[in-house]
């Protein structure tokens, strides 16, 4: 753990500070947690990539129902398998940090909720979203009738151009009305 390869070079550190919403301490802590996830030999790799399963062992993400979507959204790998490099990891933490703007948070929230990655939230996306929110147990799940009613109400309220889906602008409009969003869309290591 103490090898030079696993330490963060100074120029990179200041660059990360400039380009993300994280403070120096947060970046160093992120680096430490990230290197803990790597296997021994991977640590000397110049730009290691951690598979999704390893990322999901982090306590902050372990039980989150959106954990897989979060990894997929921030992953820059070719096959979108959810594996993260350190820079992807910093992107993730930056979007979820204290000082990230509402726009960034709402943008990434939209991408996380867009389960099929088509750029809009349609019926299927919303259904999956509500199921993630309400959990797995039988008494908290919504019945199909309730689900249908809920989604039609959501679309009534937020779908302004009436195309049957919620796009990014409509989503951000809804988010902007809720002051709690910024404080709840946070993950801190």
């Amino acid at each position, binding site marked *: 753990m103490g090898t030079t390869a696993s330490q963060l070079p100074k120029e990179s550190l200041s660059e990360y500070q400039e380009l993300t919403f994280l403070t120096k301490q947060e970046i160093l802590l992120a680096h430490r947690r990230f290197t803990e996830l790597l296997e021994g030999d991977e640590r000397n790799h110049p730009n290691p990539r951690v598979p999704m399963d390893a990322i999901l062992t982090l306590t902050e993400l372990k039980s989150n129902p959106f954990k897989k979507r979060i990894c997929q959204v921030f992953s820059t790998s070719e096959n979108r398998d959810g594996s993260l490099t350190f*820079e992807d990891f910093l992107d993730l933490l930056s979007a979820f940090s204290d000082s990230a703007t509402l726009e960034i948070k709402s*943008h990434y929230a939209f991408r996380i909720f867009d389960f099929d990655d088509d750029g*809009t939230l349609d019926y299927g996306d919303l259904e999956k979203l509500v199921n993630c929110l309400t959990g797995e147990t039988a008494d908290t799940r*919504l019945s199909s009738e309730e689900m249908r009613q809920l989604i039609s109400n959501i679309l009534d309220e937020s779908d302004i151009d009436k195309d049957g889906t919620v796009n*990014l602008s409509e989503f*951000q409009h809804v988010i902007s009305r809720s002051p709690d969003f910024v404080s*709840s869309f946070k993950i801190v290591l």
Partner: protein
Amino acid sequence: MANGGSFNVNIYEEDYDYENLGESGPSQDPFQLFKEPACNVQGNPGDIQMEMFTKNSDTSDSESTSSSKESYNGCRLRSLQRNNWSAATRRVLSSMPSRKIGLHSSAGMAVRETCALPTHQTSSRVSLHIPRVTQDDITSPEFEEISTEDEANNLAGSGLWCTETNKEQLVSDLRGLSESEGLRKLRAMPLSLADKMEIRKHFFSPLAKNLVINRNFPCRNLPCMYLSRMWRHCRYAPRFSTSLKLWNSSMKKLSGRYGTGVLSYFTFLRTLLFINLLFFITTFLFLVLPQAIHPPPDSHGESFSWIEIFTGMGYLSRSLMFYGYYSNITIKTTSITSMVPYCIPTAYFFTITISFFIICIILVYSMSKSFGKSFQVFKSDGNLSENVFCSWDFKVTKKPSIRLQSEKISTQLKEQLSELASREEERTLMQRFRNFLVHVAAWFICLASIFFSALGVYFLSKTISKVLQNLDLLFMAAVVSGFNLLLPGIFNFCAWMEKHNSPCTRVYVSIFRNLLLKISLVIILCYHWLGKIAVEQDPQVSKCWENFVGQELYRLLLMDFIFTVLYTFLGEFVWRIFSQKILRKNRKPVFDIARNVLELIYGQTLTWLGVLFAPLLPAVQIAKLFVLFYMKKNSLMLNCQASKKPWRATHMTTAFITLLFFPSFLGAAVFVAYTVWKIKPSSGCGPFRNLTSTLESVKLWAERMKDHHQILSWLIRAYNAFTDNPIFLFMPSGLFL
């Protein structure tokens, strides 16, 4: 980058077909499109206006939100221009999002790529006034400029979303801004870090790096360079808020298990601790320390017994703790003070008033910040889409808490759905009448209980006019704290009886009742102190009435603490054991956030009321808050579970800070101001003895200073003009507000 690029091109090729298809759409029915926007626009025009007028430097919403729209718009624009639409048509059509899924997907994808970002002119016109979906009928005339600047917005020139020319364009536009502006903009773009670093490399070419420094700090000599480098270093130094590192890890654990609501209570506690610390440091440095170094001649060491810690009598009453100890001398003996004599009465007066003033500024500032975050403080529960999109708290990490959160959201959604379904059913007249009666009964019970408790305290204070000994002194304080403990239980029962429409209303109503109770008790006590004790100055009660009042407040604060400990122990620990072992219920008690915060505010009010009479009271409050944190935290972890009711944390925090400022701080400030202005200090003790009012000491000091120093006499003349002419008083308060 290469990976992203190839992927992107694939997506775009599909979209290009859709876009061509889409062209035919508008040409067919422009009128329909004109009609539709009118009925589609919902939401608050207020919000929209606000978004339109946010400053560009304020990492405006345009980057991410309209980036997709602009990239799409640029492309759309070419197609529209080819058709020679009128400006108005173009405006409306271009602001309508596509009805084809494909275009949206490309818009969503394209945002991720650097090159799809629109150009940002230094003038805010372009980025700000891109109309959003909801602004179809509020489109700004600036949209015309976009069409004229179409060449600059040449995103779809070659028909591809992603080209090198676009990236260069973006970079060149960023270059138009100053370094900090550009970086801030770049930071706020929803791109991957690799893309941002590449843009940054273009933005800051190695050559430009030196230019950048010189551009901002145009000085070439060495000290200047060091200064500028240090300034940049400071900017990246840990921000002030993260330097409040006290208890960070505990609070993270708490929020992981209990969510944002409970966290707001502990954050509030920490804020109060820092406010008290600030107060304490000022009074300690300027008041306590000088007096401690020069003890008054008539103080003797007295015998000390443990009871005195609780009653504040005896040894403590003749110590630095209370007003009576402070003398009215001017210190001239040490080397520094022989040149500038340190006058203790003046120091006393100014320290207290200036500390109050500083705290006032801090509270107003945090209140305005809080209001800015939640400008719809009294809005009701919110609609379904808000609940679905915004209610998941990502900070919660423990599995059982996540399960609880899912339960909470599920219950909330189901309740709202059933409420929507049943909204059509009118409640019968009998039902409504019965509800009304229940409300009236509940309010009657609450107000009656408040009235009787206030009356009880009033009579008790009147009968305790003879000198009491030892623990009997604590009786009054115990009664007040007892009322504060028991009556909210009655209020909770009433609230349970009433069955309000929404949990939000219920919380507000119970907070209001609790607040009313505490305010009435405090007012009765203040009236008793200022109206009776201070005016009559009965030597039987005390030779030094300020000491008496200070001791009363000290006892109240201590009793409040003891009762809180008792409540935590009995109400949470014993109740949990009782309900689990005897009642065999699996549910632990819930942490009542509103009640606990009001307790904190009450304690803080007492501290502020008492600081004039007992300068070390903030230290007592600090110790109390410190112990309270650990006690509440441990009790929470052991005994309580997270609440099942939704708690709108931001609204509540705003409400609490407002409550801290408005009845609590302002009330204490009025009390202190009235004492200082009108009440005659006692003649036997304290720094203001033998004066008709506290203010007089300042006037005397000013007179003395006028003879000695020129500058000060100037100041004093200005001050006199200031206070004599009421207009001058209104001006700064007007400015301030």
